[in-house]
C-alpha cells in the first residue's frame, strides 16, 4: 500500500504547527516557563501559515487557559486548518488539544525572574478526518527561562509520543516520535511605564528531529529527518493584552528522501489575560 503525499504532508505540517505551547511572556515558537496568575483566564487566537514546496497550510486557533494556581495552568486549543497543494485543498476543524504547564521552580530577585516548568499536552483525535492525524498524541517537555528588564533567555526540550495509526486495510502505520529542542533570547530596548506599550524583540533557534515512519516493518521513504530554524519575532504588550509575531526561517535541513525543505512558518497571535 502506498501512502499518499497529501496524507504524509498533512501529518508533517500537523506535527509542525500543533506544537505551540506558547503562553504569556514566552518565546513565540517554543515554550517558556511562564504560567498564568491564579484564577486568571487567557484567551488567545493565533494564525499560522507554513509553506513547503508547492504545499501550504494555514491554521487559525482559538485557545483558552486557566490558572489553577500561580504556578499551574491548564488549557485547551481548537484549530481550524486549511491545507492546499497543487491538486487539492482540505479544510476543517482540526484536533483539539489539552495542555498543562507546572512551574516547579522559581527564583525571584529585583526585576529578575528565573524559573523552570514541566509541560504536558495531549492532542486528541477529534478533528475532521481530512485535516486530523487520526491519532492521539502526547507531548512532554521541560522549559527554563531567565527574565530581566533588558535581557531574556530561554531553553526547552520536548518529546512527542506519536500514536500509531490504524489504516483501513488493518495495517498499522508506525509514526515516529518527534524531538524538539529550542533556545531563545529576548531584548527590551527600553523599559517603559507599567501602563505603556512594552516591546520585546526575540530570536529563537528551533530544532526538530524525527526518525522515519514505519510501515510493514520497513522505514517509509520521504519521512523523518531533522530541521533547524532561526526565528526572529516581536512581542508587544499593553497591560493585559499582547500581540506576538514571528517567522521561522529554515537554516539547516536534513529531511530523508525526497521531502521538500520547509520554506517558512509564520505566526501571528493575539492574547488577552483576564
Amino acid at each position, binding site marked *: 500500500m502506498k501512502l499518499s503525499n497529501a496524507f504524509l504532508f498533512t501529518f508533517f505540517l500537523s506535527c509542525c504547527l500543533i506544537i505551540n505551547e506558547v503562553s*504569556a*511572556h514566552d518565546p513565540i515558537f517554543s515554550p517558556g516557563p*511562564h*504560567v*498564568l*496568575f*491564579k*484564577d*486568571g483566564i487567557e484567551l488567545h487566537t493565533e494564525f499560522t501559515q507554513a509553506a513547503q514546496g508547492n504545499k501550504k497550510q494555514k491554521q487559525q486557533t482559538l485557545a483558552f487557559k486557566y*490558572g489553577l*494556581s*500561580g*504556578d499551574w495552568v491548564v488549557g485547551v486549543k481548537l484549530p481550524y486548518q486549511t491545507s492546499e497543494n497543487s491538486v487539492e485543498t482540505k479544510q476543517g476543524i482540526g484536533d483539539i488539544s489539552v495542555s498543562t504547564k507546572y*512551574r516547579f521552580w*522559581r527564583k*525571584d*530577585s*529585583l*526585576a*529578575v*525572574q528565573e524559573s523552570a516548568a514541566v509541560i504536558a499536552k495531549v492532542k486528541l483525535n477529534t478533528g475532521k478526518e481530512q485535516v486530523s492525524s487520526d491519532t492521539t498524541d502526547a507531548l512532554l517537555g521541560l522549559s527554563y527561562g531567565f*527574565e*530581566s*528588564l533588558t535581557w531574556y533567555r530561554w531553553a526547552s526540550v520536548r518529546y512527542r509520543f506519536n500514536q500509531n495509526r490504524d489504516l483501513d486495510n488493518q495495517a498499522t502505520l508506525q509514526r515516529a516520535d518527534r524531538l524538539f529542542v529550542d533556545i531563545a533570547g529576548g531584548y527590551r530596548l527600553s*523599559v*517603559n511605564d*507599567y*501602563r*505603556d506599550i*512594552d516591546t*520585546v524583540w526575540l530570536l529563537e533557534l528551533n530544532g526538530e528531529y524525527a526518525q522515519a515512519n514505519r510501515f510493514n516493518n520497513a522505514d517509509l521513504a520521504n519521512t523523518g529527518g531533522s530541521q533547524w530554524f532561526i526565528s526572529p519575532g516581536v512581542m508587544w*504588550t499593553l*497591560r*493585559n493584552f*499582547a500581540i506576538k509575531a514571528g517567522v521561522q526561517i529554515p537554516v539547516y535541513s536534513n529531511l530523508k528522501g525526497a521531502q521538500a525543505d520547509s520554506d517558512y512558518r509564520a505566526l501571528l497571535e493575539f492574547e488577552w*489575560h*483576564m
Partner: protein
Amino acid sequence: MNGICSDNNVDKTQLKQEEFIVTFLKETLRIFTPIVLMLAIFSVAAQTTTQESIFEIRADGLACPYCAYGIEKKLMAINGVKHVDINLKQGKVLVTGDEDLNFEEQQLKTLFNDSGFTYRTMKKVLHAKQDKK
C-alpha cells in the same frame, strides 16, 4: 425765569435717577448678599479634608509589565483599593485606596505568590487629599 425753572426740573430728574440707582443697588445687595454668603458657606462646608492611604509594596520577580498584570487584577479586587501602579525598575507596587485600607503580611504573601511573584515588604504612607464632594 423760564431758564431757572428748566434747570430745577433737570436737577429733580437727575435726583430721581440717582435715588433709583441707589435704591436698586441697595435692593440688589439686600437680595443677593445672603445668597452669595450661603453659597460661600455651602462651598466651604462641602470642601472636606479626606485622607487616602498609599501602600508601597516591594516585590521580586517583576521583569515584565504583562506578567505583572495579575498583581493589579488581584489588588483591584480588594475593597477600598482605588488604583494600582507598578514600578518595575524599583520592584515596587504602589496601591492607593481608602483611608482605612489595610493589608496583612500573610495576605500579601499569598496574593503575590498567586500572581507568580515574591512579596518582600510593605510600607503604608498616609496621604492628605482635599476632596470636593
